[in-house]
């Protein structure tokens, strides 16, 4: 396929994941209260410690206020108007894929994530989450040969309650923030990964989150533990149908890396972003945090954020182990009326800890794109080093880009470097490329992927090209 026709095809597609799967779901009544939480917990046949965890979170949440500091300007959310649990009917955990509703399998086929054995990706294990529940996890047996546990968090609660009890809420405490508290009270499903000591996970692990129903919030919860000297690369993808109402997505992701372990967590977020006028779309309020607990451990976040009407997300690293490493590589693209407020926190606690932040924000249309980040060097963290680079690219005259870097250092000898730039795709650049036979759309997407190259290089191979074409798609109509 030629470059030109590929681009024009992409440009014509608009949001190709906006379809709705007609399926019977079991939903609980709208609203949140103690009995709703008890109902969710009962449906999932949870042990008492987890119900207590939820109820405690709920009582904290009731007294918390939505954070307003990011100035996201959305109308108040009526938390009693949301359904907190929705599952395809008769979902009670299937033993094999043959028993999963064919409509759901078709849905994932359409999303490019085939689950059945003939078609599925050969080197990626997938946990597929549909609304509030995980419907299938591939390659479980193969992974089990290496002792890798990869399953839905609901299954992990049943099978490995001691591990869940030990780690859940330890990186993101239940009262960490308003949305994390809400998630802790009502989380429905998500993925669980445990890589045992000394094991390099033999394949990419991936979760695919699909919101299907319009009035249901999605509150997924992911927990990844990498034991000593183990490593794993995990990727998540997200899409949702187009509705003209806003859907709340408030996830919590916790990562824990022990001595010499490494976790690479990549996200391609493509929730429905609302229409040109900002009607509809997902409110993506997510808390992601990794704890480098062990010495020389490493946690690396890469994200490509292109969807959602509002993104509020700061994947962070607590660098507790000596010589641990935290990384954050981000591309956030906003168009039309989208708002993204994203960045990271690097908390240097251990000695000789290192962090790298590379953030690329692209704002088009009437959108607003902010980088917000904190680098904190604690009093015990001798020899800490940070390098941050935050670049913004503006397309057109109506978009906004902001950078809010916060640096707190309690040590004199810490090495902290911060570079920032804001640029605009100039008419002269565009003319230069056009005068070489390249169309406006192709010129813009070329310049945007050039701008993002540092970050794309960090993505797993399978994702890098997907991310690239996703950006092209999202840039539809930004020029001329």
């Amino acid at each position, binding site marked *: 396929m*030629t*470059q*030109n026709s590929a681009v024009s095809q992409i440009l014509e597609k608009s949001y190709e994941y906006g379809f709705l799967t007609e399926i019977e779901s079991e939903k609980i009544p709208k609203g949140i209260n103690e009995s709703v939480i008890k109902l969710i917990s009962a449906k999932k046949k949870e042990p008492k410690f987890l119900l207590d965890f939820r109820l405690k979170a709920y009582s904290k949440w009731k007294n918390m206020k939505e954070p307003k500091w990011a100035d996201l300007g959305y109308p108040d959310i009526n938390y009693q108007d949301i359904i907190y649990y929705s599952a395809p009917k008769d979902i009670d955990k299937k033993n094999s894929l043959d028993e999963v509703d064919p409509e759901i399998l078709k849905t994932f086929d359409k999303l490019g994530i085939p689950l059945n054995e003939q078609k599925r990706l050969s080197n990626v294990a997938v946990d597929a989450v549909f609304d509030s529940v995980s419907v299938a996890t591939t390659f479980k047996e193969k992974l089990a040969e290496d002792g890798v546990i990869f399953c839905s968090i609901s299954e992990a609660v049943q099978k490995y309650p001691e591990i869940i009890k030990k780690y859940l809420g330890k990186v993101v405490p239940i009262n960490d923030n308003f949305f994390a508290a809400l998630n802790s009270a009502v989380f429905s499903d998500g993925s669980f990964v445990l890589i045992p000591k000394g094991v390099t996970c033999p394949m990419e692990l991936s979760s695919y989150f699909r919101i299907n129903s319009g009035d249901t919030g999605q509150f997924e919860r992911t927990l990844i533990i990498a034991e000593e000297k183990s490593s794993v690369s995990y990727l998540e993808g997200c899409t949702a149908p187009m509705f003209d109402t806003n859907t709340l997505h408030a996830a919590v992701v916790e990562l824990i890396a022990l001595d010499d372990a490494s976790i690479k967590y990549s996200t391609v977020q493509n929730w429905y972003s609302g229409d040109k006028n900002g009607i509809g779309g997902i409110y993506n309020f997510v808390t992601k945090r990794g704890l480098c607990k062990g010495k020389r451990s490493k946690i690396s976040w890469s994200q490509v954020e292109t969807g959602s009407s509002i993104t509020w997300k700061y994947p962070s690293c607590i660098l507790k182990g000596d010589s641990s490493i935290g990384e954050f590589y981000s591309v956030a693209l906003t168009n039309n009326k989208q708002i993204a407020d994203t960045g990271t926190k690097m908390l240097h606690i251990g000695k000789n800890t290192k962090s790298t932040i590379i953030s690329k924000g692209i704002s088009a249309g009437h959108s607003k794109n902010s980088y917000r980040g904190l680098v904190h060097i604690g009093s015990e963290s001798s020899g800490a080093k940070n390098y941050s680079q935050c670049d913004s690219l503006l397309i057109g005259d109506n978009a906004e880009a902001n950078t809010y870097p916060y640096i707190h250092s309690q040590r004199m000898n810490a090495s902290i470097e911060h570079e920032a730039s804001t*640029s605009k795709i*100039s*008419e*002269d*650049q565009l*003319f*230069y*490329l*056009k*005068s*070489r*036979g*390249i*169309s*406006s759309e*192709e010129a813009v997407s*070329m*310049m945007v*992927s*050039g*701008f*993002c*190259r*540092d970050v794309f290089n960090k993505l797993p191979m399978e994702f890098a090209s997907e991310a690239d074409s996703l950006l092209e798609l999202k840039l539809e109509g930004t020029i001329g």
Partner: protein
Amino acid sequence: MSSKQIILEVKDLVAGIPGERILNGVNLKIYENEIHAIMGRNGSGKSTLSKIIAGHPSYEIISGKILFRNIDINSLEPEERSQKGIFLGFQYPIEIGGVRNIDFLRVSVNARRKELNQAELDSFEFEEWIEEKLDIVKMEKNFLDRGVNEGFSGGEKKRNEILQMALLEPIISILDETDSGLDIDSLRIVAKGIKTLHSNKTATILITHYQRLLNEIKPDYVHVMKDGKIIKTGNKELAIQLEESGYEMLETINK
């Protein structure tokens, strides 16, 4: 003369940016196998003319026409003009960070090849094909891996322009002050490249202030622009005269 195909015709062209007229009736006819030089002081309209021919969106045509092989190109986008074989070598080539030179060149070449109904080149084929072209401008292969013009010296930028000309094989090349800011060695390389690429089926316009490029490339015609008009046309001798006596000489003629 009559058997020669006309390539470019500019007819009574009046044009400018909103609120300011820059060209005040330019007339120019260029046939295949011809090299034209356009000279004149800063602000005389030379660069504007070249940008308008290439389709720069900041300029508007108030009256008059530009015909490329007898077809009015006024409504064509810059990329369509390029695909059809109009090439503008920029006075100040733009830096485009992060975009690899070779990726840019390949997309550009394939756009032109598509117009010519030639098969497009994949990255392997292209890499092979470009190697011989690099020699024309004496460029090293590592140029191709750098960002487009990113951190290039003045001479490297100009050589990159000539490389693009070599790759696109245009029908008409308009080279806007390609000689400015070049040391003598780079000037020779660039001039040699231009000569190599000029053929009896193509035409070349050299926009320049100085005689020195014209010592390397002998033009068939020399035009002098002033206040948005061509005030005198002659042959190579005119350029030499200008070098000796300056533009004042013409200003008195013009009065």
